[in-house]
């Protein structure tokens, strides 16, 4: 009798499970295989974008989508990052380097077919400078004459700002000072134009939360147009037939996935659901390296990992102490044993090679000299040095580095370091309020120029946060560098400033970031560059013949 009962119970299970499994096996072809056939790129994009309005968005995931949907006056070569024509087909620069005149393409169109001209830029840049909009990238405009003054309200007439549409297809931009990286700024999405009629259809120009960027509403001027936005699921963009250079675009469609969990993302890649991942779990890197897997792309990245030192804390006021701390971090070991993705040990704040700039720094790993400095500062063999705290935002990666540095400082300087982790927003609060002693930090350059790293440490710089202030440094970065005539002179000025920074050390550089992505073999023309911004207009898909696209098994 019991057997009969058991049969009754087991039977449904036996029926349900195989049915479910069989129904599952029906699908067959992976995203990647299918995408290779129909020209659809499946892109792991990190997180759900906060906004696709170029004057509101911040963040890398937003950047990727916006650059597919929109284009600036100037583009860049995806390999060399040299400026190349975008919506502007040509431009001239005045002898004093302050006046740029752009000649716009007459065949440029918005994705709804509307003509796209110089007036769009004047209006869009006016919009981007409205404080009510909450544009965090407004400072990208500040090299333009009177832009900062207008934003801060000291100039109220926008006509005084150095942007002028001379006619439908000529735009003149006047800068306060010659700014050698100005053309690069034009390829940042915060300077992209927006379609006025669309923005105004869904609200006022400076209204933050309107629906103009959503599917069905979004109008852009880029190579692709938005066709589908499923929150937390995917965003799909398709070729824009009105794009001035549509004939050269080879991808038909891009699907962006909010792949927040890097472990899941890597599994999706292996299962052929993604062509490219936004990152990779650090413990997987050695496995891919060992397997010599061509899908692993590691490239230098324009960013630095460093520690801020709060120079208002008594024991950290003495620059000899800060120097001793900086000299006893074994960066090679951190890079090789903890990070394992080819990160470059950093001995200065600007990544070497930024616009041909190589910072000179006499910072080095030298425990002997560091101990001597600590003696001079009054802490022989670390005696009497108060226990000091390293603050970091909660993350396993930051913890590993902090523990390693804690041990190095104990070993080489015999000082006690405590570790304190805080949740991201709490950590931000503590750091900006100066409630820390030593704090971990990271900085990604907005544009390829030493200025993007060095102007952070001006006395009144919002991102300084160390309490450090040096008049000569301010003079070099804020007054001298913008006015010198040649590139060489300018780099020399940055060199002098960085020397001061690395002598005083309100910050301890640790390593230069690398970008780490997994890219399927079928993605061609995927250029690794220091901004980690490959170009969607150049990429195309080509499946290798007789090759299974999903790499499986060994990872």
């Amino acid at each position: 009798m019991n057997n009969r009962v058991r049969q009754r119970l087991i039977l449904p299970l036996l029926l349900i499970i195989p049915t479910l499994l069989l129904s599952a096996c029906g699908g067959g072809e992976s995203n990647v295989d299918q995408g290779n056939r129909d020209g659809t790129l499946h892109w792991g994009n990190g997180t759900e974008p906060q906004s696709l309005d170029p004057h509101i968005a911040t963040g890398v995931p937003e950047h990727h989508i916006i650059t597919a949907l929109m284009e600036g006056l100037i583009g860049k070569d995806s390999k060399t990052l040299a400026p190349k024509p975008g919506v502007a087909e040509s431009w001239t620069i005045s002898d004093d380097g302050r006046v740029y005149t752009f000649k716009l393409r007459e065949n440029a169109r918005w994705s709804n077919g509307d003509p796209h001209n110089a007036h769009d830029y004047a209006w869009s840049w006016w919009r981007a400078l409205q404080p009510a909009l909450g544009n965090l990238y407004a400072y990208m405009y500040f090299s333009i004459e009177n832009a900062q003054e207008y934003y801060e309200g000291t100039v109220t007439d926008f006509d005084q700002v150095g942007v002028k549409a001379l006619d439908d297809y000529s735009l003149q931009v006047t800068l306060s000072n010659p700014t050698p990286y100005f053309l690069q700024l034009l390829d940042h999405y915060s300077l992209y134009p927006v379609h006025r009629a669309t923005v105004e259809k869904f609200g006022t120009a400076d209204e933050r939360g309107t629906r103009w960027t959503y599917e069905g509403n979004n109008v852009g001027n880029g190579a692709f147009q938005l066709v589908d936005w499923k929150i937390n699921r995917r965003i799909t963009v398709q070729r824009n037939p009105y794009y001035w250079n549509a004939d050269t675009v080879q991808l038909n469609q891009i699907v962006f996935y909010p792949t927040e969990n890097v472990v899941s993302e890597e599994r999706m890649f292996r299962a052929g659901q993604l062509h490219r991942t936004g990152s990779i779990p650090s413990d997987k890197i050695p496995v891919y390296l060992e397997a010599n897997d061509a899908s692993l792309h590691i490239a230098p990245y324009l960013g630095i990992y460093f520690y801020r030192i709060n120079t208002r804390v008594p024991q950290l006021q003495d620059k000899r102490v800060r120097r001793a701390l900086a000299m006893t971090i074994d960066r090679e070991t951190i890079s090789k044993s903890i990070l394992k993705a080819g990160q470059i040990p950093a001995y200065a704040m600007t990544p070497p090679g930024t616009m041909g700039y190589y910072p000179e720094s006499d910072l080095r790993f030298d425990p002997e000299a560091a101990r001597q400095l600590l003696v001079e500062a009054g802490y022989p063999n670390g005696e009497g040095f108060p226990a000091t705290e390293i603050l970091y935002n909660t993350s396993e990666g930051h913890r590993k580095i902090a523990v390693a540095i804690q041990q190095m400082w104990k070993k080489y300087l015999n000082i006690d370091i405590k570790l304190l982790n805080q949740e991201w927003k709490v950590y931000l609060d503590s750091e900006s309020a100066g409630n820390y002693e030593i704090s971990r930090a990271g900085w990604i350059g907005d544009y390829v120029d030493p200025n993007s790293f060095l102007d952070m440490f001006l006395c009144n710089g919002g991102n300084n946060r160390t309490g450090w202030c040096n008049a000569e440094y301010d003079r070099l970065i804020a007054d001298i560098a913008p006015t010198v005539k040649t590139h060489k002179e300018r780099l020399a000025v940055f060199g002098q400033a960085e020397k001061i920074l690395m002598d005083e050390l309100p910050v301890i550089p640790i390593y230069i970031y690398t970008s780490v992505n997994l890219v399927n073999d079928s993605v061609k023309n995927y250029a690794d560059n220091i901004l980690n911004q490959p170009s969607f207009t150049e990429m195309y898909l080509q499946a290798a013949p007789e090759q299974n696209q999903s790499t499986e098994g060994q990872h």
Partner: protein
Amino acid sequence: MLRFVFYRLLQAIPVLLIVISLTFMLVHSAPGGPFSADKAVPPEVIKALEAQYNLDQPLWQQYISYLGDVLKGDFGPSFKYPGRDVTELIAAGLPATAELAFYAMLVALVIGVSAGVAAAMRPNTAQDYIPMSAAMIGICMPSFLLGPLLVLVFGIYLEWLPVSGWDDMPGDKILPAITLGTGYAAYIARLSRGGMLEVLSQDYIRTARAKGLSEPLIIAKHALRGGLIPVIAFLGPAFAGLLGGSFVVETIFQIPGLGRFYVQAAFNRDYTMILGTTVFFSTLIIVFNLLSDMLAIWLNPKLRQQTRGES
């Protein structure tokens, strides 16, 4: 019964009010604001944003106007996603979460009840020990371990099922449902075993046996109804728990559900989103508890008598 439902709904009002007030106070006292970012935010921007979201008003005023909005069914705009309302985001996430919870519940019930009944029929034998040990393992196994394990076996090695996604590929709901349902299956197995054991020792079962009814008939017709009452009582909170607790599974399988919004909102200090989702989940818990109580009353003549007596 109607009166019972009415009183329970009346009780829900102060409960919700307390939930809203506590959450409101907690989110506003948490360090770090919705607009703090790693890059310094200019004071002009902070001011403009605070004005836009009424954060420049005194806290009590914000509280009163929030309560007024909630009464009108308006949870306000999300701080994190400009242009999106909290109601819209909840509506976007709810279908996936509800569907996942439904399938997980199905998995939990099928596995849990089968195992529990089988165990109760032969207590203290292998037929009891094996499913109950498995249940204990199921209770202890966290979903962040079970999920990736299932993915590894069925997604990566066997390639039978998709490793993630929702409504993207056939079969992509199976692994999430099993991952989320297993823990609950284990609870249900233990509950149904206990319930069945108690019922099977009752006089009316002995009478049924004496009348010569077959064992399957006794189980199906007489024992299950009483034996599953503890399971029914558990279903309400369990379903609410499945809806609100699916964050880990949603993250592992990239499911566009509500759980991810709920947790991200807390990290982002998206005040309106935290409040909106909390109120929403609280309401769900209240409703599901009420439904499971009503079901239990309907199934159990003794309880029916009591409610009638009260009313």
